[in-house]
């Protein structure tokens, strides 16, 4: 017998709701569901396999496809790339960029790499003091300028420092900003042009809903994203936002932030996340 639309409808709807309730964006879920429907309708149904099981497996494969479309091993990248490596962290306000830099710095140190941090958020109150504290906790050199200084200049100076002092990795913290601000997005572009980062990492939070698609898309369009890190998975375990971000940027997700401590960073595992989403 052949799979028909009718018997696929209920399991597809059920999974659609489950994904939406786990914070996967509507546009991505709709695309996913219609693709799975196209693939399954008219397919020969094997003995003893029910429509529900088939749908779940098809969704699982489609999700894994979205998440593993682009793979990038951060540790390998750092090991193989010519030094110093300049990595910039960007994203909207409050997503966890500064805290994530501290976590990545800790991880790099544990692998024996030397790190210097660029305090390129020269705008927000207490931003320099915040990352200064993290740098001091980790015993890492920090380069900062006056409040209000040009962020591109801070990054530039930090890369210069790295070259002169044989530091392998520069981690640049930038101010949070809305993709709706033309000036602030242009400022990021300037940082990119002037300092030519080896990697631009978009940091967003798992707590965000449908807007995760729009902001990832806009940041990628206006500035360019090489990879993403998804934070606050300890708050919202389901990580549907990972699907939204991976799908709208087609860029790899490197790490997941799972708390506020320096150890709370785990390597992204697509299978693990998909199991959580479909459990």
């Amino acid at each position, binding site marked *: 017998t052949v799979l028909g639309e009718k018997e696929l409808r209920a399991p597809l709807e059920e999974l659609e709701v489950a994904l939406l309730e786990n914070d996967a964006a509507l546009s991505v879920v709709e695309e996913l569901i219609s693709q799975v429907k196209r693939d399954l309708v008219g397919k020969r149904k094997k003995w003893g396999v029910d429509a529900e099981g088939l749908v779940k497996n098809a969704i699982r494969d489609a999700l894994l496809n979205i998440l593993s479309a682009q793979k990038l091993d951060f540790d390998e990248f750092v090991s193989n790339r010519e030094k110093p490596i300049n990595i910039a962290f960007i994203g909207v306000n409050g997503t*966890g960029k500064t805290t994530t830099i501290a976590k990545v710095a800790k991880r790099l140190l544990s692998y024996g790499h030397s790190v210097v941090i660029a305090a390129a958020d020269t705008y927000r109150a207490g931003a320099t003091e915040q990352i200064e504290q993290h740098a001091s906790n980790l015993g890492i050199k920090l380069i900062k300028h006056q409040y209000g200084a040009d962020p591109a200049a801070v990054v530039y100076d930090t890369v210069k420092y790295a070259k002169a002092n044989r530091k392998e990795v520069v981690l640049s913290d930038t101010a949070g900003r*809305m993709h709706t601000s033309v000036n602030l997005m242009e400022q990021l572009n300037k940082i990119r042009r002037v300092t030519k980062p080896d990697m631009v990492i978009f940091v967003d939070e798992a707590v965000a*809903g*449908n*807007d995760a698609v*729009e902001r990832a898309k806009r940041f990628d369009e206006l500035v360019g994203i090489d990879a993403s890190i998804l934070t606050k998975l300890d708050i919202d375990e389901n990580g549907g*936002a990972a699907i939204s971000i991976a799908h709208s940027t087609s860029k790899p997700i490197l790490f997941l932030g799972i708390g*506020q401590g320096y150890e709370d960073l785990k390597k992204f595992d697509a299978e693990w996340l998909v199991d959580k989403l479909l459990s």
Partner: protein
Amino acid sequence: KLSNSLKETVRKIAMSNRIDKHIVDEVVRDIQRALIQADVKIALVKELSNRIRERSLKEKMVLNPREHVIKVVYEELMTVLGKAVEVPLASQKIMMVGLHGTGKTSTCAKLARYFQKKGLKPAVICADVYRPAASEQLRQLCDRIGVPFFDSANLPQGKGVVEIVKAGVEEFEKYDVKIIDTAGRHALEQEMIEEIHELRAKVKPEQRILVLDASIGQQASVQARAFDDAIGITGIIITKMDGTAKGGGALSAVSETDTGIAFVGTGETVDDLEKFESDRFLSRMLG
């Protein structure tokens, strides 16, 4: 976006003077998609669309079907959203709580500025002893607008959050509005939830505001409920509405906390705080 597709489907209704089930189903589907994309809780979207469908079909013949359906949608959403919450221009203690990075600290300064412009004397107390440079951040914001600031540095080392706030309230006895900033926390952090529960019990702030990021997704109701259970929320502030997020999570938060929205944050400067207006909020949400 809803406005275009909704315009299209209700244009079809306008072609006929009667509302038939087929057209209503189409319009309701469009509304569902708009609400889901606006981050309204899925269960609430289902509930709302049933009521909208039911009400739209009840009146088979109307003078203007298009306006009728839109009116129903607005009314149903307004029922959930309720009226704006008025924070009184009076002597009070205001406690700010919410998830990490939602804008509590920035909003403390914005609120202080708001009361200052209204002729009251605000003062700010920092009860966030966890985040690196949290005090420094808030101190800088307060210095910029000439508002007095109190934090753990004013006390001997190792004082708890309750002691810090009590000392601050005492210090600022001559000030009208005392605004208390707390650390970000979430529903699963038992000790942190217990902390604000104790703070509320010992300090008795008249206002307990939940600061919510406009982009919050389906977690809104779970988190709002946890904060409400812990301290009884009296009002909500939605931040970062200058982005593209529609703030649908606010609907869930309003219904979970049985309160309303007081203000909206619309940017990073201290003046970027507006009083909440439900029809502006809804027309922005429905695109």
